[in-house]
């Protein structure tokens, strides 16, 4: 993304127009600052550079310990015999590596099934969030009917109601949804549909669409393109960067979610990995449980390492608009 991260919307009008070609930047933060508190002249002075360098090294060591440490231990536990995990958690494989932890978790504890459940939940949450956010953003920003203001206000209102406060009424709605008649409990719809109701996504989309050049839509309309054609062939391709942000966060949020899927998906065979792990805790061998936990952590960590620029630039935006 070529947008500055301190603003909640793209501030340059060129940003959405040529998103795919802007791939030259290497780090998400360094390109933004024109300068920081220490000037280049000062940095060349050893009296300034040396203490700051030292602090940076200390910080790097602390960050490695805090970020990599627990993850590395988790990966080590995943292939360590349970007795070794319990007796000497910090020793490096005193009685050898036990790869069977992983296969046992995957096959015998049915982690494979829960992993697939997590994938199904994440895919559906992604689809419903992208569908709702793009279509609502299109209505609010491009089509702009007379009632758009009303819809916008009604959606913005929900930003002020913390999701967690609605836990109980939302559960009762999922149990007996009015007009639908079919209970959403123990169906994936119960996870997918509420995930779509994200005002944060709609705000993000609307603000992005607001910055798309309006003349192009007008030209397309004059040429006879209907609203659906404009949406599908022009707005969606242009909004690829913001779709990336919404997608990445939708998948990660769904993967991390615990309380809501635990309430809605009561059937253990349907539960995602995150919901299942605490219940496995009591009945599973510790080494196997650690392997299962490592499997659960794998996908988000890999996704983060692959899409780190998207993650980091939109995490900065989170400070400006967030429910």
């Amino acid at each position, binding site marked *: 993304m070529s947008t500055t991260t301190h603003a909640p919307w793209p501030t340059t009008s060129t940003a959405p127009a040529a998103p795919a070609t802007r791939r030259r930047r290497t780090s998400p933060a360094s390109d933004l600052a024109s300068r920081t508190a220490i000037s280049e002249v000062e940095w060349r002075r050893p009296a300034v550079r040396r203490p700051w360098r030292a602090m940076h090294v200390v910080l790097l060591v602390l*960050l490695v310990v805090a970020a990599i440490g*627990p993850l590395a231990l988790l990966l080590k536990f995943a292939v360590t015999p349970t007795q070794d995990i319990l007796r000497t*958690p910090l020793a490096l494989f005193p009685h050898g590596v036990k790869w069977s932890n992983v296969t046992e978790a995957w096959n015998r504890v049915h982690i494979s099934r829960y992993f697939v459940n997590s994938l199904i939940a994440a895919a559906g949450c992604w689809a419903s969030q992208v569908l709702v956010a793009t279509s609502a953003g299109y209505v609010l920003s491009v089509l702009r009917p007379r009632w758009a203001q009303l819809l916008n206000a009604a959606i913005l209102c*929900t930003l*002020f109601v913390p999701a967690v406060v609605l836990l*109980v009424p939302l559960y009762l709605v999922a149990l007996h949804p009015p007009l639908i008649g079919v209970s959403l409990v123990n169906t994936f719809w119960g996870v997918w549909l509420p995930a779509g109701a994200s005002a944060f996504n709609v705000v993000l989309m609307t603000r992005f669409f607001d910055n798309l050049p309006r003349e192009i839509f007008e030209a397309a309309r004059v040429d006879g393109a209907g609203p659906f054609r404009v949406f599908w062939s022009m707005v969606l391709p242009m909004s690829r960067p913001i779709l990336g942000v919404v997608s990445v966060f939708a998948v990660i949020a769904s993967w991390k979610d615990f309380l809501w899927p635990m309430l809605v998906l009561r059937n253990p065979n349907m539960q995602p990995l*995150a919901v299942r792990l605490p219940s496995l805790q009591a009945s599973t061998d510790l080494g196997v449980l650690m392997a299962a936990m490592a499997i659960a952590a794998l996908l988000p960590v890999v996704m*983060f390492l692959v899409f780190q620029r998207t993650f980091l630039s939109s995490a900065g935006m989170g400070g400006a608009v967030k429910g």
Partner: protein
Amino acid sequence: MVTDDLVVAVRPSGRRTRITTRFVTQHTRRRRHTPATWLRGGGLSALVFALPAIFVFGWFSWLPIVKSVVMSFQKTNLIVTTWVGLANFHRVLADPLLPIAIRNTLWFALLALVFGFPVPLVAAVLMSEVRRWKGLYSVLAYLPVVIPPVVAVLLWKFFYTPGPRGVFNQLLGSVHLGPVLWLQDKAIVMPALVLEATWAAAGGTIIIYLAALTSVPAELYDAAEVDGASVWGKVWHVTMPHLRGVLFVTFILQILATAQVFNEPYLFTGGGPSNRTLTVLLLIYNYAFGTSLGGRYGEATALSVMLAVVLAILSVLYFRLTRRWSTS
């Protein structure tokens, strides 16, 4: 004859100028509203595009909001529903567990501020001066944020194993301290939970600060240098005042987050030992879904509504400030 005429209307909206184009007919200066003009003007397709949002928000956002207010005055066992007036509120306020839960939540929030406020700030200020491998610092800082909370809590629960062989107790033992009972010790259990929560959330705060640090105008630093300011002088007198808005935002975000904390107390301790980690949200959960009490939906929503009012006030405050901050 009806000729379509392109009229470009410029109207200021917010800080930017929006250009709206609209087809108007020359014949009728004022547009008449008949179903036919509505249909031809794209009214139907706008409605079609709005349907997913209306459905999803209607069922899973607006309806639960209304329902939560209505239900807080009702008693229900899912089959029979009766109006009980303020009885739910009376019963919740009379519950001896409520003051404990409020105290624990405030204690959690205070500890979260003590742990989670200065550390990301110092880290972000240091990181903004990094000349090489800046991306590596950010990636490392944010890595714990993406780990699923359930995995993080279960892993830390193992780290907190009470005996001398627990991971943290071994580390303390190497400097001749401990062993500590961590999750069983009434005084230590809450700081232990907050430590994990801070570890899991600090990266997000650091990235927010880093983004804000890039928005400090270069001229301010240049001017400070002309005035002979030292590096620390610039950090203290230029950077910090500029971060004030963001600091307030993260402050409120953190309070909002801690008021809704569920995973840590639920998975680490289940509220124990002797209710020392029973938070407000855990109490709501126990009212509605807890096995011992169970199904007290009325009380659960009454407490939710009270929590919502407090949090909504904070959210409004937050939203106003972010508006001002992001446009400044």
